[in-house]
């Protein structure tokens, strides 16, 4: 789980172009869509693409996405639960 969290942090920084961040700046339990990262709805779409491309997981509803992308840890939880299905 912790390895996946670290991997996700690096992926998020890369796909969302968080140039001024590194993995040590991201607390896995802080909200991704709070003020700190300045993420937009386009970034949420990029995270959906990331899950599909990298982990072969499709997210069907926006409501589901809100919960999954709440924090890095909730993303990792979701991947752990769904990646082998």
């Amino acid at each position, binding site marked *: 789980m912790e390895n996946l969290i670290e991997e996700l942090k690096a992926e998020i920084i890369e*796909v*969302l*172009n*968080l*140039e*001024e961040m590194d993995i040590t700046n991201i607390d896995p339990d802080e909200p991704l869509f709070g003020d700190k990262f*300045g993420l937009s709805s*386009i*970034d949420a*779409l*990029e995270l959906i*693409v990331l899950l*599909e*491309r990298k982990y072969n997981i499709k997210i069907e509803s926006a409501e589901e996405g809100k919960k999954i992308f709440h924090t890095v840890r909730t993303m990792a939880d979701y991947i752990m639960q769904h990646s082998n299905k």
Partner: protein
Amino acid sequence: MKNPLSITTYCKIAGNKITVNGNVVFQGQKNIAFPDFIKQVYKTFDFSYAKFFKMDNLCRLGFAATEIALIETGILSHYNEGDIAVVIQNGSSSIDTDTEFRQTIIDRDNYFPSPGLFVYTLPNILIGEISIKNHLTGESTLFVTEKPDFPFLHTYTKALVQTGKTKACIMGWVDFDRHTPDRNDVQYEAFIYIVETKENKLNFEHTKDNIITFYQS
């Protein structure tokens, strides 16, 4: 009759060099790639705007030239947000990002269109980025033309002012194309000039000849 319009600053970014009013204010390393060059520019001029790194190359280029020109003039405090126009010309449209986006959809077995790239597959997003950052709500237009057409921009500026639509204009030419082989020598170029109805520190007369001279300098 006195020309009511002045060019109060101009900024050019080309060949890893930035000039303001003809003076070199930043010189990048000779063979540095554009992404690294523009990152250095971001740090040097302390833009402090995280969204900069989400922008595509065209927007980063035009945004940087505009921000540097704005530092020099201070027009944001001299005019209302709705009285400042942004009018830019561009030659290669968004071909740089169009090409990059195509790579995300070209393989049907690896088909993951990038939303973050897709939003930059229109060149007028550049004007949106400049306007959002500076809260500008005035007239805005982006023209795609083969080459810079400064006589046209000159006439357009005069019309905007004479019809009462604007009191200051952010004008210029911003072009980015790294994919067309015969254009390798001119990969990117931004020339932004500010036109004002009020007097400012520098007051070059707003004429076609001056615009062309400043662009070529």
